[in-house]
């Protein structure tokens, strides 16, 4: 039982972390149909910016803000210079964002060097509570809370605000939204920048959890985010959230019970979902 609770907590917190990365991806793909292969790079820029600011100011709040600002800024420039030119052309989008990924990653390694940079959990969130045999790591609780808050905030934004209505309408029918006098391009840019900031937020949150940032973390987490989005269904925000939790929990349980299988479990999960329900658990129907 204790083991079960511990594993569930750890899985949930991993899932929430993946969710932060995947939510931006899911939003951008859902609305714009842009599969952003540079998403992991935005995540990494967030992580590096967060670590850099945290090392200098020792304020995690500032690190979070700086990371999100870095992600939003890079996302904005990227959207302006590249993505804006190729809406609707799926292949070109994949190709372009891959190129952007190369440049962004290499810029990071040119600035910070190729080595791992260590970081620590902020003192306020360090340590853990123990209830008998159940150990609750504070930072894990923090990630779960942040994940839930972000999920709630985005859900609220999508379902209750004017921007959210426009975004959802844009997913359904872009031309109709345009006809109603709304500049859908501007909304696209906004969503892209917002999604980039979410990816970067995921990066800032992830860095203390694994204790370091390195140049491989972008592609790793991007892949997890992809797997989550595939499992949850393209364009479904709720699906991405559920997919993240499933992947997080599955990872935690298999790592404990069948350590050999833990590396394969994500790919196997994804293959299963694709076989049984090719559009994902909450997919909006493919073509």
């Amino acid at each position, binding site marked *: 039982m204790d083991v079960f609770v511990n594993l569930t907590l750890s899985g949930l917190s991993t899932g929430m972390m993946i969710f932060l990365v995947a939510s931006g991806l899911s939003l951008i793909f859902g609305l714009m149909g842009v599969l952003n292969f540079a998403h992991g790079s935005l995540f990494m820029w967030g992580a590096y910016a967060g670590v850099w600011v945290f090392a200098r100011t020792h304020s995690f709040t500032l690190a979070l803000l700086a990371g999100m600002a870095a992600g939003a800024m890079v996302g904005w420039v990227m959207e302006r210079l590249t993505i804006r030119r190729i809406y*609707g052309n799926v*292949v*070109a989008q994949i*190709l372009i964002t891959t190129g952007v990924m190369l440049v962004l990653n290499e810029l990071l390694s*040119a600035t910070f060097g190729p080595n791992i940079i260590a970081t620590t959990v902020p003192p306020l969130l360090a340590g853990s509570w123990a209830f008998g045999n159940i150990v609750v790591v504070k930072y894990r609780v923090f990630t779960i809370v942040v994940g839930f808050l972000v999920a709630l905030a985005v859900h609220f934004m999508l379902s209750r605000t004017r921007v959210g209505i426009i975004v959802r309408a844009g997913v359904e029918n872009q031309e109709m939204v345009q006809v109603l006098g709304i500049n859908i391009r501007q909304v696209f840019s906004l969503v892209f920048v917002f999604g980039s900031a979410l990816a970067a937020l995921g990066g800032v949150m992830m860095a203390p959890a694994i204790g370091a940032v390195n140049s491989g973390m972008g592609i790793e987490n991007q892949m997890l985010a992809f*797997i989550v989005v*595939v499992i949850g269904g*393209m364009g479904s925000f709720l699906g991405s959230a559920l997919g993240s939790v499933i992947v997080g929990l599955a990872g935690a349980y298999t790592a404990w019970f069948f350590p050999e299988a833990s590396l394969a479990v994500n790919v196997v999960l994804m293959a299963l979902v694709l076989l049984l329900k090719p559009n994902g658990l909450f997919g909006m129907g*493919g073509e």
Partner: protein
Amino acid sequence: MALPKSQPAGLSRRKFLSVSGWVPMAALLLLALVPALSPSRATLNLLTQIIILAVFAMSYDILLGYTGIVSFGHALFFGSGAYLVGLIIKHSEPTLGYLLLAVLGTLLFALVISVLIGYLSLRVKDVYYAMITLAFAEFFLIIAQKWRSVTNGDDGFSFRVPTMLQHRVVYYYLILAFVVVTLVFLRRFIHSPTGRVLIAIRENEKRAEFLGYDVLKFKLISTMVAGVVASLAGVAWALQQQFISPGVMAVDKTIDALLMTIIGGTGTLYGAFIGSGLISLAREYLPELAEIHPVFGHWYILFGLLYILIVLFFPGGILGTFRGFPRKRKSQEER
């Protein structure tokens, strides 16, 4: 679709008139003369590498340039070819017989895996293919890294190649023969009725479907051909390096193929040679220029920018632009 042989489709006739006539022949002749002109070990090694990577890039071009699908796991085939041949020879004798066995095993593996991945991912949307191939490639990479008892993990392992192939010049000519055979095969494939259907799918998938073609089947054929050729390139790579580490299967290898194909020119086959030559030369010589300006140490930035510019403004790549008829912009696909 099925045109008589004497009347090639417009595309191939234009190709025939422009580059594919005498230039490749002259290039081949020149390449064949290299060992006589400059027998330096380094030159031969570099050229062999360029040619092998060009074959890898050509296989990628079948997917990207002729079928219009993007794979991020192509290194899986390249790497598994390399690993299979290395492991089989290491655990048996370095003879031509076992080498043949390894090649056959590689072919079988590539066919099975490409069908499996293609069936899982191509049924839904093309964008899935990019992500799912990436996930599978990473999965195999993890196996290569973690299954230490067999693959020796990140350290990799070396193996002896059959004595006949140890000679650099012999191996060079073998690779030259290999590339000619592959090129002829791929050109035949593209100009076959099947290849024409693939191009139709690239240009307009819905229309091809409404014309009655089983799009999934043709895409699967495309991934099979690409997978097999890529794994053979992997075999050739392993035999040249005589050493294998998980790097052959990393996503960087796929990205190299992508860069080579795009920069050289998608949908051209020959562009792969230009791309491969540029990238291999850059990798070999640009880091030496790092003392002049540090940006050369991070030459990937330059290639990334070049690549982005090419995708945005010269979709035909170097070869396509040079030929003077850049490939028509892909029609705005519906989402």
